[in-house]
């Protein structure tokens, strides 16, 4: 059997009737994506696979959430750690829409400010950043005004 056909067959096994499939997540960031989207706190049926082979990412993860459709600003939160993520919106086993994620212009409460002297690291405050560069990623803290870049990015 051809590889692509094998893949299709495998995917069919865990296909969902209605909901969202999030594909092309870097395997190492799967659990951060789950946290950011709050998938650990909802009752929906969720299946995920990780350390799957990917030409683009080396190893990728995939999440399938039944009966869940994300708003754009909700899903764009994961763009910081899964910039190549692709969404398939499924209705009655059929892909009815495809979406890509987009890095938002501002980020609230997901990322930790890398500056240890920032007030947000010393008092209970929800962090807030302005995205000053999308590639390579650079976030300016709205409080201490320091820039957290991709290499120092830490998810709360």
């Amino acid at each position: 059997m051809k590889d692509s056909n094998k893949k299709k067959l495998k995917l069919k096994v865990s296909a969902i009737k209605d909901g969202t499939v999030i594909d092309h997540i870097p395997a190492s960031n799967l659990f951060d994506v789950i946290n950011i989207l709050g998938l650990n706190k909802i009752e929906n049926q969720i299946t995920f696979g990780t350390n799957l082979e990917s030409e683009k990412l080396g190893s990728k993860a995939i999440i399938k959430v039944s009966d869940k459709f994300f708003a754009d600003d909700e899903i764009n939160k994961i763009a910081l750690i899964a910039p190549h993520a692709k969404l398939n919106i499924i209705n009655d086993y059929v892909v009815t829409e495809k979406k890509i994620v987009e890095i938002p212009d501002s980020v609230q409460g997901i990322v930790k400010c890398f500056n240890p002297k920032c007030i947000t690291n010393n008092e209970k405050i929800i962090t807030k950043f302005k995205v000053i560069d999308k590639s390579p990623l650079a976030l300016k803290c709205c409080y201490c005004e320091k820039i957290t870049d991709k290499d120092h990015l830490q998810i709360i």
Partner: protein
Amino acid sequence: MSKKDLISITDYTKDDYLRIMDLAAEFEKNPNQDLLKGKVVASLFFEPSTRTRLSFETAISRLGGRIIGIADPGSSSVTKGETLHDTIRMVSNYADLIVMRHPLEGAARYAAEVASIPVINAGDGANQHPTQTLLDMYSILKTQGRLDNINIFMVGDLKYGRTVHSLLMAMSEFDNQIFNFIAPEELLMPEEYKMHLREKGIKYYEHREFTDIINAADIIYMTRVQKERFSDPIEYEKVKNVYILREKMLRNTKPNVRVLHPLPRVNEIHTDVDKSEKAYYFDQALNGVFTREAIIAHTLNLK
């Protein structure tokens, strides 16, 4: 109308800068005006800073206001573990204005979010100290008669020195400036500020040597290399004595040049400069009172 906080120098527009300059000149002519009569100003110094605190408290007193506050963080509720959030909420109910110095960066912006009354940032760690910048600008205006067409030399710690960063941002709003940076390799002006100048089409030059290149200057802005900004004490020892201004170095400079320094100095300006008419740093400190009167009046819409 939303409240007028002053947290970062870029919270103000060019028009605001000019308005503060006008008001400061007015307060210099007539420093005692009862504009704050019946008002209470909270002076919250979570980190000791005698110079800035006295300057603010003089400004408030000359405006006829009353002061409540924290001068010694060691004896305040902070040592009991009260959060900044709770302190600010409480003080918001007591006072009409908060003047705040805090060791953590971003503390002033956060306080402004929490407070129902305006907040003036009197320094938040290594981040911002906007009233210093406005008094620096007022000193430049007074000594040069203009805020555009200035050749500014910034000397010393250009990497960690918040005063030079804020002054650069504010002065870049005015036309035909030239910036010259004199700093050791370890303390260069950060790229983001140079990029800002490039984007605005403003010329700047970088130098490692402190030589007769200063003869072209209108303003020489000296800074202290602060030990507490270094994580590695060896790095500090390497650079602390690199750039020292002496009187003889000023002999061939322009007659209008003035030496500014945010004070306190350590040894970067030799005491033999003090008697030179080009030394302006002590007058600069006095300008701080007039500028702070102007900022308070502007913030509370008293003028």
